[in-house]
Every structure is written in C-alpha cells, then in structure tokens.
C-alpha cells in the first residue's frame, strides 16, 4: 500500500539514511524452533530482505555417516528430525535393503508402518501446537503436548525410548508388540478422536485464528511444485501427491491410503490440511492394526555389526508428517556407507520459499508462517 503510514514513515526514514536495520530472528528467539535463524533486514516492522542463517547444528550428519558402520548410523539418523524421527530410520533401512535386494517379513513392514503413523500423529500434534503457540494460543499447545505424551508413552512401551526410537534396523524391526499394546493403542486413538472435536472448537473455529492465518504465505499450485514442497504443504495447494500412494513402501501397498487435497494454499488451508490428515492417520492405524499378519519380525542378515552391503546405490523415500524424506545411499561394498545424502522436507520451504515470502511480510507473521510450513530446521543443516 503506497499511502499506508508505515510506507510513508519508511520513506521519511530513507531520506535520513536510517533505513534498514538487522533483526536476528533466531537461533535464540521464542518464535523459532531449532538451531536456525533468519537475519531479517527491516524497515520499521516490514521485512525487506531475508538471509537464512543456518549452520548452528554442528553435527554434519552426512559426513559423519560415512565414518560409522551401517548399523551404527541407525542411532544417528533419527536426530535429523526431532519431532518426527521414524521416517529417517525407515528410509535409511529401506535404502540398505534395496541395495541388499532383500524383502523384509510382512509383520515387520506393518510394525514399521504403525510406528511411522504414530510418529506422524505425534508430529502433527506438535505442529498444530507450534502453530497455535506462534499466534499466542498457548492453551491449544499445552493440551496437544499432553496428548502427544500419550503417543510417546506407547513408543516407550514398544521401543524402549520416548523420542529417538531406533526401532527399525536393516532387515526388520527390533521388537514385537508387547501384550496389551494394541488395546492401549486403540484406547489412545479413541481418546485423540474425541479430543479432535475440542481442537476444532479451540483452534480451527477460532475467528482470530482465521483472521491471522487467512491469506498468509500463499503458495499457488504451480509454485508448490516449482519450489519442491512436499507432504501436507503440497497437498494443501491442490496437488494430489503422496509418496505412500505413488511410490508405496513398507506396508502401504496393503493399505488403502486416502489422499486428501485442498485448494487454497495459504496458512489456514495448511493448518486444516494437517487437521484432516490427522483424522485420516487415526483411521489408517486402525486399518493397519486389523490387517497386521503374524510372523517373523526380522530377516536374519547375519551379524549386523559386521554387515557388508554390496556395491550399489539406492534411493528410498518416505512420506513424513512434514513432507518427503529421501535417503540416497551409495555403497562401495565395505563396512561403512560410501556416501549418504539426505533430502529433507524443510529445505525448500525454509531456504527457498523464505526468499519469496518473507520480504514484504510484517514481523508479526514470521513465526506463524514458519509453523504453518512445518519447517524443522535440523534437516536444513544435515
């Protein structure tokens, strides 16, 4: 707007050479999640230029993976996405299995699918909570965190750890379901379905949420493909693409996954997309539990600590809650990977789309924009 007061003020400031100042939005900022930041060049409260400030995660995942045994990397890969760690394990293991040309037992596939979908639920809860917190609705965030804890309890029972499960290994999974686990999972799913009504009332019917998020960070159907968005962000722009359907892995070929698409492409649509997929995920877990076969949970690949993967390369991709996680694994036939390249879902949105969206945006909306695109900084820094 040419005649808006902020524009006129900025023009006055420009005359006095007081134009642009730098504001560090992260890594030490309540609106930023993870070790990442934007250096915003601003006039008044309006952003004119943005410089992503990555590199605070001093781990170097890809390089580090070349120095560890095949199986040791299982302890490393989940750390690429804290909120949604399982897709990393499954993608890495699937890539190894592709090079080894083995087919894992059906029950292992279903167990992997169930952990993936549970991880998706917990990540969606965290994502919705982060979005609510970004616009100041801490009640939703607190209740969602409490509900996420129920899923983490189940993970603890199934895998022995709450956040980094390290559950998939090349050839299968590490544990079978405990007694009483399935009943408990059903109970938690019922509880979440009931809670969903409350979330609707608190978050998705809230008029101020609509006011804040409508039209924020609009991505058109073509732009979503051009910038390489994946997952819910892509489907919220009207592109029916889902790795679970288009290139199925684990047990998804046996399950009927419904792809939800919406037109709209703004932050509100993306929030509602997460909400709809949350409901669908609950149903998917129920279907997977019903059709899960009995049998072995692991393929015997010999001593895994001395596992040698034959020469070759493979790309495995997994649909995570934030988008597509891809692992490109190259083996030279040795004890360690020759090269592992990770494709993270946050990189296109966090680095490329930020260049397009953040300029001309007000400082008010940066946190909500980040939360609506589910940007998870560790996979920018891998």
């Amino acid at each position: 707007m040419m005649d808006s007061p902020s524009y006129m003020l900025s023009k006055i400031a420009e005359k006095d050479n007081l134009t642009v100042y730098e504001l560090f939005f992260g890594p030490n900022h309540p609106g930023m999640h993870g070790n990442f930041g934007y250096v915003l060049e601003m006039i008044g409260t309006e952003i004119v230029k943005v410089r992503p400030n990555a590199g605070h995660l001093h781990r170097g995942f890809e390089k580090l993976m070349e120095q560890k045994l095949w199986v040791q990397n299982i302890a490393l890969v989940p750390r690429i996405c804290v909120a949604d760690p399982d897709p990393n394990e499954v993608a890495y293991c699937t890539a190894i299995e592709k090079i080894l040309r083995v087919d894992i037992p059906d029950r292992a596939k279903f167990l992997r699918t169930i952990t993936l979908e549970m991880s998706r639920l917990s990540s969606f809860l965290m994502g919705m909570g982060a979005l609510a917190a970004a616009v100041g609705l801490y009640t939703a965030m607190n209740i969602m965190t409490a509900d996420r804890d129920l899923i983490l309890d189940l993970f603890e029972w199934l895998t022995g750890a709450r956040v980094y499960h390290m559950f998939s290994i090349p050839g299968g999974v590490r544990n079978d379901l405990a007694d009483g686990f399935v009943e408990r999972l059903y109970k938690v799913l019922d509880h979440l379905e009931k809670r969903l009504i409350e979330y609707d009332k608190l978050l998705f019917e809230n008029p101020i949420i609509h006011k804040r998020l409508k039209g924020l960070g609009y991505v058109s159907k073509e732009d979503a493909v051009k910038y390489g968005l994946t997952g819910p962000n892509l489907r919220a722009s009207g592109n029916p693409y889902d790795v679970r359907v288009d290139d199925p892995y684990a047990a998804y070929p046996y399950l009927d996954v419904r792809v939800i698409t919406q037109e709209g492409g703004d932050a509100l649509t993306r929030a509602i997309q997460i909400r709809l997929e949350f409901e669908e995920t609950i149903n998917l877990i129920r279907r997977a539990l019903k059709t899960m076969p009995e049998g072995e949970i692991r393929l015997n690949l010999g001593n895994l600590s001395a596992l040698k993967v034959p020469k070759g390369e493979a790309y495995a991709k997994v649909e995570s809650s934030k988008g597509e996680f891809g692992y490109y694994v190259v083996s030279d036939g040795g004890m360690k990977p020759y090269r592992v390249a990770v494709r993270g879902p946050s990189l296109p949105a966090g680095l490329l789309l930020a260049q397009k969206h953040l300029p001309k945006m007000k400082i008010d909306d940066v946190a909500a924009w980040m939360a609506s695109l589910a940007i998870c900084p560790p996979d920018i820094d891998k």
Partner: protein
Amino acid sequence: MSLGDKSVYSPLTNLKNLFKKPITVKYPKEILKVFPKDGVSPIYRGLHTNDLNKCIGCGMCQRICPFDAIEMKVIGENEQGRAIKKPVVDYGRCSFCGFCVDVCPTNSLKMSRHYIYKVKTVKSMSAKEEVEHIKQKFKLMPDESLGDDIGYNTGKAKKILG
C-alpha cells in the same frame, strides 16, 4: 460442522476444562501409572547393568557403540596372567540406543529401568575440578550394579544383532 466455519463461542466452550482433572501431577510426590509396572516402560532403555560373572570381556559392545561411549577397563588378571577387561560406560557420550545390549554374546550386559544418575558435588571444589570430578563419576563402573530392575534386554531367544 465443516472446517472453515468460525464462531466466537466455540473457543469459549474450552473453559469447561476448568472443572476437569488436570493431566499433570506433582512429580516427585506422585507418579502417573502408565505401564503394567510402576515407573517407566518394562523395556525401557535406561542405565546399563552388567552381570560380571557372565561378562567375558569380549569387547563387542565397545566395537558396536556408535558414539564411542564404552571403554574396556582392565580390572585384574586371571590365572594365566591375561588381563580381565570389563566395559565402562561413559554417560556423557551414551545415546541409549541399546545396540551394546543387542550385540552382547552372553547377555550379561542389560539395560535397567533406572534413568536418574546422581552425582554428589563437593562444595570445596573449584569449577574446573568439579567438571573433571563429574566426568569421572558420570560413568558406570564395573563394580556398580543396578541389576534389580532390568529393562531392555534381548534374552537368548531374541538375539537381534549377530
């Protein structure tokens, strides 16, 4: 209801939470009962525990450890004059992945359901000394045992790695 409707009254319905029981508890005084056993999950990957009678000191755990947290310490000599080695776990490095438990050939190394490790600080120490002190103490020494409460363990029948 279709998503996308908005209403000022909908958020206000959440005020009924005021009359519900809170989810959180006063932690040290009361604990939530979540699992069939009290405390953490039955297969929790907590602090290690090593059955020294079974441990043969083979060093497999040291070899598999992704984070180089296990070190084989010589604790004595046997009759033939060869060193007896036992694993020492450094919890400053350990990521609790449990691969050392999976790989143990005699199932002597297990993980307990304990997850709180207390180190008493000595007030007379300087900051630098204290760091060194905690570095030394923050390890599971072979003579320590937490064997009363076994969490993650593979058992003979369920060998995972190897």
